[in-house]
């Protein structure tokens, strides 16, 4: 057996983005011993990239806003396959979570009377996003980090988890390694919270960094937990597309919220041509009204650029496909045009979108105050993930909780911008509290030495010098998987393509057995990449199988062979689990009937 160090915690949190940090703080508040494991350094997780803001119906800018409107917006955005109980808790609890963040030192932009300012965003009826310029995510993660380090939490930076450990059906710990030296570590815990984020790295064009390989989803799946909604992958409509090295980097929706418009090569504002029926009543159908909305006119309807992300992404795809794209295969996003409307437009743009200004200036030689940006869809967010109980965030395996992007339910078929940061706060807090409670009610479990033995042996296989006739590179396998998922299970999906993708995943995972790496266990990026391949295969297969099974188009999931929604499909989520033979199975999980008072809220808000 390989050597390892052992630690014991009441609650172990895996992942230290907004959700993991918030969960760890809450778990520690109950006095328990909390461990926090993260793949990167503290404060570097993808929360730092969030630009838009935190959606919370505080009603500071428009007093017509309240939890009911937020609830209805979230459900409409998710095309009604959301976990409605989560959507309710989220809408009700988000404002208090924002206030809590302020009490811990977060500084947000203010209204004239000194309260927290809120901005417009896609799919939100009223100005709702709490923000500070376009770097809200940094403010949030730094606040949680700086508060969190004083709560007695043990932080394990640059540690990765290989497997969850079970005893008598419940999760009792995790086993992993550190990047620095490649040593193994056993984390015994009474409860484990997964907060590992997304799966963007399964696709070629993505706004996600190397970390987002679906580890949490795969760990939970292997531990016997169910995943749901895996067919719903959000392609954010506006990623950078040029130069090639920046392809996929996010261009915040706030550009559109502050007046930016989408134009095709003919200079036409094509979003005005395609407003879906269910949004027609609340969408501006002319330029003048859209502009007034971005300038805070309460009687104006929002511009069509702020329709939901799935719809905007598909409209961009269509423009490109029909030959009306920009030179590098996207469309134009123009904020500089507002100089025709206001005198000091350059200062206004730099003030409101400082990091976008900086990003384009430095990476693409584009001055966004003077010229349009070129943008196209980028893989951004996973709506699906680990199936959880709405109140406690506990998965279908006792002692295992999941929160944030790796959890699922709140967003349904499509997430609204800003609903992720609020998700992290609301459910991070809940997961922390319920995991701490679970830990109080349970003892440490027995650790299965065989499981440790298997995990460490498997992890070291890429260093083996014998066996493999044809050695494979981990980077090559990863790249082929990303290209295949992008082409065959991407924004526009077809049955035959996805069947081919399933075969492709099987072939690649077969080849992955022959992956070998050079060097030693010290901070070896090749080895780390090899160890994430398994997670990427699991989530890729789950996405593809679910997408095959949903024979309709809904939210982010678009089937060219079934281009419209099918009302009968609104009645279930697709749940993915491991069958007794170790194969992946997909089943329809009926959505429980919505409480009548909530149904009424949705009717009222239509």
């Amino acid at each position, binding site marked *: 057996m390989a050597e390892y160090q052992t630690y014991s915690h009441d609650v172990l949190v895996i992942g230290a983005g907004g959700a993991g940090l918030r969960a760890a703080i809450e778990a520690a508040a109950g006095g328990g011993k909390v461990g926090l494991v993260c793949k990167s350094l503290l404060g570097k997780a993808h929360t730092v*990239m969030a630009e838009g803001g935190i959606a919370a119906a505080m009603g500071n800018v428009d007093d017509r806003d309240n939890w009911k409107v937020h609830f209805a917006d979230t459900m409409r955005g998710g095309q009604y396959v959301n976990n409605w109980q989560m959507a309710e808790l989220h809408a009700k609890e988000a404002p208090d979570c924002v206030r809590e963040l302020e009490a811990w030192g977060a500084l947000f932009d203010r209204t004239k009377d000194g309260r927290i300012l809120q901005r417009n965003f896609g799919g939100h009826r009223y100005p709702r996003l709490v923000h*500070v310029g376009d770097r809200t995510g940094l403010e949030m993660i730094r606040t949680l980090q700086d508060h969190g380090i004083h709560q007695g939490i043990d932080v394990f930076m640059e540690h990765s988890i290989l497997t969850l450990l079970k005893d008598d059906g419940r999760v009792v710990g995790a086993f992993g390694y550190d990047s620095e030296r490649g040593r193994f570590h056993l984390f015994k815990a009474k409860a484990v919270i997964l907060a590992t984020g997304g799966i963007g790295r399964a696709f070629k064009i993505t706004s996600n960094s190397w970390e987002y390989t679906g580890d949490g989803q795969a760990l939970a799946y292997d531990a016997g937990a169910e995943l749901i909604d895996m067919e719903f992958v959000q392609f954010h409509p506006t990623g950078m597309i040029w130069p*090639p*090295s920046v392809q996929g980097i996010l261009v915040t929706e706030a550009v559109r919220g502050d007046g930016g418009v989408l134009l095709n090569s003919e200079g036409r504002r094509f979003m005005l041509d395609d407003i879906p029926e269910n949004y027609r009543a609340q969408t501006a159908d002319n330029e003048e009204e859209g502009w007034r909305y971005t300038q805070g006119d309460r009687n104006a309807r929002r511009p069509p650029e702020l329709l939901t992300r799935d719809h905007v992404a598909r409209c961009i795809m269509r423009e490109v496909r029909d030959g009306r794209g920009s030179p590098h295969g996207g469309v134009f996003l123009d904020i500089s045009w507002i100089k025709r409307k206001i005198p000091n437009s350059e200062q206004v743009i730099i003030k409101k979108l400082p990091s976008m200004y900086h990003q384009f200036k430095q*990476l693409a030689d584009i001055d966004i105050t003077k010229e349009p940006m070129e943008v196209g869809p980028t893989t951004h967010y996973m709506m699906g993930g680990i199936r959880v109980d709405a109140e406690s965030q506990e998965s279908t395996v006792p002692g295992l909780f999941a929160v944030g992007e790796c959890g699922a339910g709140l967003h349904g078929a499509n997430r609204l911008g800003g609903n992720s940061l609020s998700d992290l706060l609301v459910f991070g807090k809940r997961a922390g509290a319920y995991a701490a409670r679970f830990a109080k009610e349970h003892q440490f479990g027995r650790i299965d030495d065989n499981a440790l033995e298997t995990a460490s042996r498997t992890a070291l296989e890429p260093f083996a010098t014998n066996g493999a006739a044809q050695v494979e*590179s981990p*980077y090559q396998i990863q790249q082929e998987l990303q290209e295949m998922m992008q082409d065959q299970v991407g924004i526009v999906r077809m049955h035959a393509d996805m069947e081919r993708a399933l075969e492709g995943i099987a072939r690649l995972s077969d080849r992955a057995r022959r992956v070998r790496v050079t*060097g030693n266990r010290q901070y070896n990026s090749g080895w780390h990449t090899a160890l994430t391949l398994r997670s990427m295969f699991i989530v890729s297969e789950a996405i593809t199988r679910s997408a095959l099974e949903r024979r309709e188009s809904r939210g982010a999931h678009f089937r060219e062979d079934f281009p419209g929604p099918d009302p009968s499909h609104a009645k279930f989520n697709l749940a993915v689990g491991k069958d007794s033979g170790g194969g992946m199975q997909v089943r329809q999980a009926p959505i429980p009937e919505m409480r009548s008072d909530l149904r009424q809220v949705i009717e009222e808000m239509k």
Partner: protein
Amino acid sequence: MATASFRVWRGDAQGGAFADYTAEISEGMVVLDAIHRIQAEHANDLAVRWNCKAGKCGSCSAEVNGMPRLMCMTRMSELPLDKPITVEPMRAFPLIRDLVTDVSWNFRAKMKIKEFKPRKPDAPDGTWRMAQEDVDRVQEFRKCIECFLCQDVCHVIRNHQLQEDYIGPRLFVHTVALEMHPLDTENRIADLKKSQGLGYCNITKCCTKVCPESITITDNAIIPLKERVVDEFYDPLRMLARLVWPDSKPPG
């Protein structure tokens, strides 16, 4: 397509040397792209720390042609390609491997700084009122992405290794952000003087020069903190007051 040659530091705590590589350069490429290309094609085990690749997370700090930079924000087009481009780890911190250094001291040092302590809420519902100008005033400091390039270049850390008695530019920025927070009521001035080594900084402004977020660290963060220390400890009236009432909090 153009190619560029690189001299990349390979090694660990025991020692190391530059290794030579070449990589194809395409339009818009940054140094981190080239390092990734080298990693994928020639050196699978090359150690490099990175995350967002958009200048927002501050992970990929290194020294490119001798200058502390974020690799993801250093365009190849701004570097001369007629001679090899050197890429080395931050030299002020202990090397883990290749381009990756042990920056954990920065995280430990931060814990010594007293945390945010807000005044009582202004409104009965437990919330505060603030003016936008007061929020704007500290934004510069809150932009910091904790890349630690300022710590890397600071001679107090890099040359004199005074980490035990000094917190460095990044954490002075952190302190000033707290001190100027419109709601904060804590006082961190004595700590800055007594245990955090503010006096060691002799304002050479190297930190300001390398900050990828263009924070004017020396002028806007460190000098105002030095002024506060002077006000609190070297004002003759206050010195007298301390003699008479040694335990009292300084007035004003």
